[in-house]
C-alpha cells in the first residue's frame, strides 16, 4: 500500500487519461453505430456488409491495430490518436450489432401503433423505436466499455501513458505492488464505467421499472411515448 499512498496523484492522472482514451471512443462509437445499426437492421445488402465487416474488424488484435493505423491515417506511430481511432473501431464493431438487434426487438404492434397515431417514419424511429431499443443497446455498451478499458491498457506498449503504464512499469522494475495497483485501478475503472452506463440506462428507461412493478401486464410500448416525448424529462421520471 505504501507505493500507492505515495503516488496516488500519479495513479489518479493516469486513470483520468485512461478514462479519456476508453470513454471518448465509446461515445463516438455509439454515435456512429446508431445510423450504421439502423441501416443493418433495415436488411438488404447492407446487413451482411455491415455485420460481417465490423465483425472482421473486431478480430484484429489490439496491438496490431494500434500500429497499423499510422499506415492508413499517416499519423505518428506513438500518437495517442491511433489509440482513440482503434478503440472507436472496436466500439463500432461491437455496437452495430447491438443497435440492429435492439431496433429489431421493438414489438411490431408498438411500431404500428405509433404509425396509426400519425408518427412519421423519422419521428417514430427517434421517439419510439430508439428509446425502446435502449436496453439492448446499453447491454452492448456495457460489454464495449469493459472491453475498452481492458484493451486501452495495451497502449502502454506503444508508449501511450494511461493505467497500463503501471503494468509495464511494475513488470520492468520487478515491482509487484505497482503492477497490482495498475490491475486493481483498471478493474475499478471498468466497474465505474459499468455503473455509469447502468445508471444512465435506468434514467432513460423509467417505463422498464414502472412496467415491472405496478402493471406487470402492460407492454413497454404504452410508456414509450411519455418517456421519450418529455425530452429533457427522463431525470424527473427516474426520480419517481
Amino acid at each position, binding site marked *: 500500500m505504501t507505493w500507492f499512498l505515495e503516488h496516488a496523484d500519479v495513479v489518479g492522472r493516469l486513470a483520468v487519461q485512461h478514462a479519456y482514451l476508453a470513454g471518448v471512443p465509446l461515445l463516438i462509437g455509439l454515435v456512429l453505430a446508431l445510423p450504421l445499426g439502423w441501416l443493418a437492421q433495415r436488411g438488404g445488402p447492407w446487413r451482411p456488409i455491415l455485420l460481417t465487416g465490423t465483425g472482421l474488424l*473486431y478480430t484484429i488484435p489490439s496491438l*496490431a491495430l494500434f*500500429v497499423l493505423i499510422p499506415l492508413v491515417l499517416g499519423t505518428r*506511430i506513438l500518437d495517442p490518436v491511433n489509440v482513440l481511432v482503434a478503440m472507436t473501431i472496436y466500439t463500432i464493431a461491437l455496437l452495430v450489432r447491438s443497435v440492429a438487434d435492439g431496433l429489431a426487438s421493438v414489438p411490431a404492434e408498438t411500431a404500428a401503433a405509433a404509425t396509426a397515431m400519425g408518427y412519421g417514419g423519422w419521428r417514430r424511429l427517434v421517439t419510439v423505436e430508439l428509446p425502446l431499443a435502449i436496453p439492448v443497446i446499453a447491454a452492448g455498451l456495457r460489454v464495449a466499455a469493459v472491453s475498452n*478499458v481492458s484493451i486501452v*491498457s*495495451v497502449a502502454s506498449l506503444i508508449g501511450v501513458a494511461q493505467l497500463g503504464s503501471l503494468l509495464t512499469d511494475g513488470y520492468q522494475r*520487478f515491482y*509487484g505492488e505497482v503492477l497490482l495497483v495498475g490491475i486493481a485501478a483498471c478493474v475499478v475503472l471498468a466497474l465505474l464505467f459499468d455503473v455509469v452506463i447502468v445508471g444512465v440506462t435506468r434514467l432513460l428507461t423509467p417505463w422498464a421499472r414502472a412496467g415491472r412493478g405496478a402493471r406487470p401486464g402492460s407492454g413497454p410500448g404504452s410508456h414509450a411515448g411519455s418517456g421519450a416525448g418529455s425530452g429533457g424529462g427522463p431525470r424527473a421520471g427516474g426520480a419517481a
Partner: protein
Amino acid sequence: MIGQVWAWLTDPEHWSGPDGIPSRLGEHLSYSFLALLVAALVAIPLGLWIGHTGRARWLVSSTNAVRAIPSLGLLFAAALYLGPYLRGSAAFLVPGLIVLILLAMPPLLAGTYAGVEAVDPAARDAAKGMGMTGRQVLLGVEMPCALPLLLSGVRSATLQVVGTAVIAAYISLGGLGAYLSEGLNIGDYPMVAGGALLVATLALVLDLALAGLTRLVVSPGLGGTRRTVARQTSRTRRGAGTATNSVPPPSHPSTPRESRAS
C-alpha cells in the same frame, strides 16, 4: 512506408531460420492451439454439466467478470510471480500459457452453457419421453442443439487467445508478436507493421475458418445460424411456391441431411 513494409514482408531472409516468419507463425499457432485445447477440455464439459443440471450457474457469471481484468496485467503478473519458481525455458513458456488458458475459458464456458440453456425444452422433453437417459439427452440432443452457440464461444476464445498471444511476446513467449515487441524496441517500423499485418491476417483467417466449420457441422435443422435460416426460408419459398416470410420452426435434430448438401 507501405513499400518498406512490403519489402520487409517479402524479404526472403525473413522467411527462414528460428526468427523467420514460418517458425514464429508455428510458435504462435502451437501455443494458441495448446491453450485452447486445455481450456476446452475443462470449460466445455463444465459448461455442458452446468447447462444440463442447472447447477452452479454463478460460475458462468463469475468467469465473465474476469473480462474486466486487463490481459496485459495478467500476463505481467504471471511472469513476475510464477517466473522465479520455474527453470529453463519453462520460465518463459508456462506463465504465458497459463494466462492464455485462463483467458480462453470464460468464452468457452459461457458459449457452451448458453447453448445448452437455449435448447428448446420441447426437444428435451421429447427426448426424455422417448426413453432417453440423462446422458443420451445430453450427448444426443442437447449437445448438437448447443453446437452453434458452443462454436461461437470457440470463435471468441480463439480470437482472445490469438490476440493475447501477440502481447505475450513481451513476456518472451515468442510467436508473431515478437516482431511487434522487437520492432517497437529498436524503432523498426516496417518490422512492426509487417508483424501486425501477419497477426491481423492470421486472426481473420482463423475466424473465417471457424465460421466455415460452424456452417459445416451444425445441423441444418437447427436454424441456429442466420445463414441456414435464410437458406431454408428461400428454399421453402421456392419449393412450396408461397411467399411466406416466416422463419421455419426449429425442426427435430433428425432433419434430412440433404438440405445441407448444397
